């Protein structure tokens, strides 16, 4: 085990800003991409429904 306490874990031996800055940004970007993917799918389905409804 590398960490004596949760505080140790968040401190990352003094490199907390760099390590957590890396992981947090990656997490935010992936969550954002998943949200954008879902929005695009919903928009495509709505547009298709309107298109076929108008025929």
């Amino acid at each position, binding site marked *: *085990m*590398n*960490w004596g306490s949760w505080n140790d*874990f968040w401190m*990352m*031996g*003094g*490199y907390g*800003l*760099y*390590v957590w*800055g*890396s*992981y947090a*940004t*990656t997490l935010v*970007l*992936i969550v954002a*991409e*998943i949200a*954008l*993917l879902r929005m*695009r*799918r919903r*928009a*495509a*389905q709505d*547009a*298709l*429904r309107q*298109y*076929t409804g108008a*025929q």
Partner: protein
Amino acid sequence: MTQPVLLAGGVNVFKYAAPQTFYPLAGKLIPWFSWIAAALCAVGLYISFFVAPTDHQQGESYRIIFIHVPAAWMSMFIYVVMAFWAGVGLTFNTRLSHMMVSALAPTGALFTFVALWTGALWGKPTWGAWWVWDARLTSELVLLFLYFGFMALQAGIDDPRRADRAGAVLALVGVVNVPIIYFSVKWWNTLHQGASVSVTSAPTMATTMLTGMLVMALAAWMYAIAAALHRVRSIILEREHGSEWIRNYAGSQP
């Protein structure tokens, strides 16, 4: 029409080149790739933080490697896959190939940005600089601009067929940058370190560190496949709205 090509198992590979057969297949595959990605990510993160030991030179800052290297690998790999499908699309004029190129670009750009961002956050405590204009960093930045350029070019052309062809040419021309990124640490004197993992020599890192990195790389790979399949399904819906199969599909959806 393309001649049907039969594999040994009797599977017609060109069957899945048609959007109407690919669309439901992709839909079935997405949950699998998503769950495998999530499971690998959980295992990878556990190894990265709780199994892999502290580095005796860099302390805990080295733990950035578990996203930095997988992201950098994926940034290059996705571009090569894009260039491959661009080549297939230009040669055989297959709609789905071009859609796949478009579907991969945003995810490739995401991984490129992550590689650069985590590199900066690793460079600061290790080299004392967020950024240096060395060959590895500069060529990776060029890769980010290639992804953005591809997306801007496609967004800027209204006719999808012309947008496909222009994008495919850009993707193919830009692929020369990938070996430049990969070999930059050999060809030039870079501040960026050389490869720790290569196919020709034993890796120069602890086994648990290497395992964590490889599991995270697999997770990133599975995620990229799931994201690209999801996006290509939306692109199919956007582009094929005039065809009969998709009208039946829309009619069957609540």
